[in-house]
């Protein structure tokens, strides 16, 4: 009885399927990526054990160790923060303001920012912190 020889596997890459996968991944990255324009603001965040994650509509308010406030990468005074927050609250009343303030900053400065946000109609606040072990 003749035993048929196994055929040698062909060294062909299925390019169309690979291109499909590549494009699906590409679409995923395009949809999920955001341009980070606030990377250069030096802020050392405080740590907290009850840190939670959130995914609702939000905007960042950064306050560096010198007390300067930044929204979307631009330095803002109290009036500027109020106008920016008012605009965001008008667009979405449930918007969250994520305050990323330096751990060494006097609390007074963060309190001022929270008051400004509240006056502008932004009531949901997240004090950004690093997650610490419980």
């Amino acid at each position: 009885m003749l035993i048929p020889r196994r055929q040698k596997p062909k060294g062909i890459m299925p390019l169309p399927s690979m291109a499909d996968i590549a494009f699906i991944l590409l679409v995923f990255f395009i949809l999920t990526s955001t341009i980070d324009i606030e990377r250069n603001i030096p802020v050392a965040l405080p740590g907290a054990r009850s840190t939670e994650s959130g995914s609702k509509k939000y905007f960042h308010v950064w306050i560096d160790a010198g007390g300067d406030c930044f929204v979307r990468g631009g330095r803002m005074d109290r009036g500027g923060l109020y106008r920016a927050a008012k605009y965001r609250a008008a667009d979405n009343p449930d918007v969250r303001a994520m305050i990323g303030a330096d751990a060494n900053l006097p609390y007074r400065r963060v309190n001022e920012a929270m008051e400004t946000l509240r006056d502008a109609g932004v009531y949901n606040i997240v004090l950004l912190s690093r997650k610490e072990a419980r």
Partner: protein
Amino acid sequence: MRMVRIKRGAKPTGEITIASMSDVAFLLIIFFLVTSIFLLKDGLHLALPDTTKPATVVSPGDVVTVAVRKDGAATLDGKRAQMDELGRLLGEKRAEKAGLVVLLKLSGELPYGTAVKAIDAVKTAGVTKLSLRME
């Protein structure tokens, strides 16, 4: 008379060069992988009171006052307390009173990191009603 022959343009082939297309796609993927970062969204969630609505009235018996001075020294109802123990002490208080309200008085000169630690202690204790006051 000699006629000049005009050459007909070659018919375009209806093929897409998949190999080059996948190369471009993979290059773009590498670009996004290298440049993407995860956005920071972790933190302490607070809901500020709406000033246009009437203030909530709470029974004085349900209120526990925590004060933190600018040097980081904390007191719980006037008694000295360590910052590390605040969470546990407030947890015990909450076990006694379900509707516990914490009035957190923070010095304006207190480092923000310490202020977050105090708010964290309140949240760790499971207290949901927090009143923040700056002194």
